[in-house]
């Protein structure tokens, strides 16, 4: 048993830190590093992000876990994870979809043509993707999706709607699951496509969220895409979608930001006076911190279980569900505790001159809402844990 990372992994962490320190001196750093924010989408559509991604690519940080024949380094997935922890700790956008689910699905199931077109772009950090799964009627029940793709000669024609597509407004390509066989059982008639975001008939409208982060609805009105852009086989899309979750098993959950937030809260409460005394002299605050410290450590352990299982070569479905369930609920609890400690002044937004911690906790209380809903709600995670982990029957 060893709770430390291996020597080679620690060396890698040092390298990444050095890279990030260097990068901090670049002009665009302010547009990319935002350690205080909750979600990265506010910065994610900036030009700085593209520059930064290309620097990551140049430094060899993209596609580390891909096979060498595709330009990767055949490194263990843990390096993607370690990189993401470091990126998260400086508030930079994480590596994700491109080298993760999209790249790996293409490698495993894509045609030579698609591999040749997309893999090099991904490795160069040139392309941004959006993920089109959810629909107005398909949230937790993703397999009930209805976006229609009909074959018309050498083209697929799309009609319908996607919902909650976070990067749609700046992405280049849209990775979309659509229904290609309406007669088949619901999981069986789905295919996956790559669609250029600027395709005629594709319309993006903004959805603003309580957490200030932008997401989108995407409408398809006779959007035509060449059959070359079908990923893998027709009607096998559900398989690819499920498999893809597995490709990201290492990178999905970083724990650093939660720990950093907890530490920042402790520092803030030490320095905040009420009636002349630091808040940390209050017994209730002290006990709350003690309990949260235990919870943060517990979340860390749940995250370590994901890593350890993945390193062992297992698919950590249940481990990841536990980690996601616990740490997102904890994130919300942390924000609530912070506001209760800060009292009414904690309600002030970033734009108020005297907002404690520049409104960080006010924002956190809004922004963490999405965490227990998106990416599989807490209720879905509990279904996974009880059915796959505990073997309980579903009705």
């Amino acid at each position, binding site marked *: 048993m060893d709770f430390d990372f291996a020597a080679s992994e620690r060396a890698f962490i040092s390298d990444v830190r050095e890279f990030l320190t260097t990068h901090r001196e670049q002009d665009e750093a302010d547009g990319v590093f935002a350690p205080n924010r909750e979600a990265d989408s506010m910065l994610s559509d900036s030009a700085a992000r593209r520059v930064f991604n290309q620097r990551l690519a140049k430094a060899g940080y993209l596609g580390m876990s891909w096979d060498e024949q595709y330009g990767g380094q055949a490194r263990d997935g843990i390096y993607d994870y370690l990189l993401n922890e470091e990126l998260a700790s400086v508030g930079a956008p994480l590596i994700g979809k491109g080298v993760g689910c999209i790249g790996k699905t293409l490698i495993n199931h894509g045609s030579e043509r698609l591999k040749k077109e997309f893999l090099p772009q991904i490795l160069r950090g040139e392309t941004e993707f959006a993920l089109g799964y*959810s629909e107005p*009627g398909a*949230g*937790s*029940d993703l397999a*009930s999706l209805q976006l229609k793709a009909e074959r018309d000669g050498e083209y697929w024609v799309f009609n319908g709607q996607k*919902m*909650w597509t976070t990067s749609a407004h700046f992405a280049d390509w849209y990775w979309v699951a659509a229904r290609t066989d309406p007669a088949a059982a619901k999981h069986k008639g789905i295919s996956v496509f790559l669609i250029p975001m600027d395709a005629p008939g594709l319309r993006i409208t903004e*959805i*603003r*969220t*309580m*957490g200030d982060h932008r997401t989108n609805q995407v409408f398809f009105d006779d959007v035509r895409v060449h059959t070359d852009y079908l990923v893998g086989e027709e009607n096998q899309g559900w398989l690819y979608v499920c498999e893809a979750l597995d490709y990201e098993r290492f990178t999905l959950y970083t724990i650093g930001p939660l720990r950093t937030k907890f530490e920042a809260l402790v520092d803030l409460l030490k320095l905040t*006076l*009420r*009636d*002349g005394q630091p808040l940390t002299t*209050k017994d*209730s605050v002290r006990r709350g911190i003690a309990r949260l410290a235990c919870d943060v450590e517990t979340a860390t352990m749940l995250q370590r279980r994901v890593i350890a299982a993945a390193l062992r070569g297992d698919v950590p479905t249940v481990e990841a569900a536990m980690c996601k369930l616990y740490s997102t609920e904890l994130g*919300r609890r942390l924000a*609530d505790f912070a*506001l*209760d*400690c800060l*009292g*009414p*002044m*904690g*309600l*002030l*937004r970033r*734009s*108020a*001159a*005297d907002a404690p911690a520049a409104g960080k906790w*006010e924002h956190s*209380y*809004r922004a963490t*809402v*999405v965490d*227990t*809903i*998106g990416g599989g*709600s*807490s*209720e879905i995670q*509990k279904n996974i844990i009880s059915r796959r982990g505990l073997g309980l029957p579903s009705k």
Partner: protein
Amino acid sequence: MELDFSEEQERLRETVRKQCRDHASSTAVRAAETSASGYSTELWQALADTGITAMGIDPEYGGLGMGSLDSAIVHEELGRSLVSLPLLDSAGVCASLLQLCGSQALRQIWLPQIASGDTVLVPAWQEAACSPNTDHWECSAVTAAGKLQLHGEKVLVPFANSAAAVLVALRHKGALAFALVAADTLQLREQPNHADQKLFAVDFTGVEIDALAKLDAGDATATWEQAMLQTQIAVAAQAIGGASSMLQMANEYAQQRQQFGQPIGAFQSIAHYLADCATEIEGARYLVYQAAWACDQGRPYAQLAMMAKLQATAVYRRSTVTGVQVHGGMGFSADADPQLYYRRAKHLQLMYWDTDYLEQRIAAEILD
């Protein structure tokens, strides 16, 4: 043991609810959040015309002399529609202070205007680094040449930009005192906040006012305590109204939203969340009514009022957490309504005496 409202009270509720329906749709609430005044002047006028602004004020000054339970009904309905108004601040806290501590002259000038709704006064009491415990407040006044020279900053003053005057809590000759300061002499700094309410920091340093503007006639500390206890009940009622709306929305959504071939409300996970919410809300609702009723009966009600505020706002908060979760993506979408309730709940929980202070007070009442 009779927990129904009188017909008159039911009519009052219906009246206010209708006015909220007319003037406080969620679109109107959003508009108010971003308007200059921060509230709907149409709704204010409609309520004033119905006498709502006069409810708690003595008939002698143009008021209706109505009780705490009537006030709870009004605030529950306002809370249900997320209405934000300087009602509690002006016709509640400021009117109470004027009635019990103001000179005859001040009462005659201000109370009829407050009762009619023509004028808004707001209290300025919170300080950035202080709890609600008055002993620690630092804003002060000194007498010099028949004038009062003020010093210090108040924060989170609601609707100060719409007020004719601010009633500021001060330390004067070692004791708590209140004084009226015309709003046009003050520098306001807006404090953008979680629930997008109109709140301002007000710097009183350097402000000089006439000594007669001080409320000298009664016991300032006792009056403040009473006014804030009444406030606890009203805010608790708002919280219950808001929580009830949130539950209703979540319930409707759960019945209508289909996933996995059935309404999500058919899943026990969702159904049991809502059952817990409903239980807590109904319990807290009668806690609020009981506090108001005890107050109207002339019985001790301080503890009941504080318990009502602590519990009702906690329940409101929890019900909004559940409510947004049940709504899924719609729960965090800015264009859907759950987030409005989510933000308001935390606002009410921390403003007007927060959890920390209420727990301490309630414990002291039981233990010391």
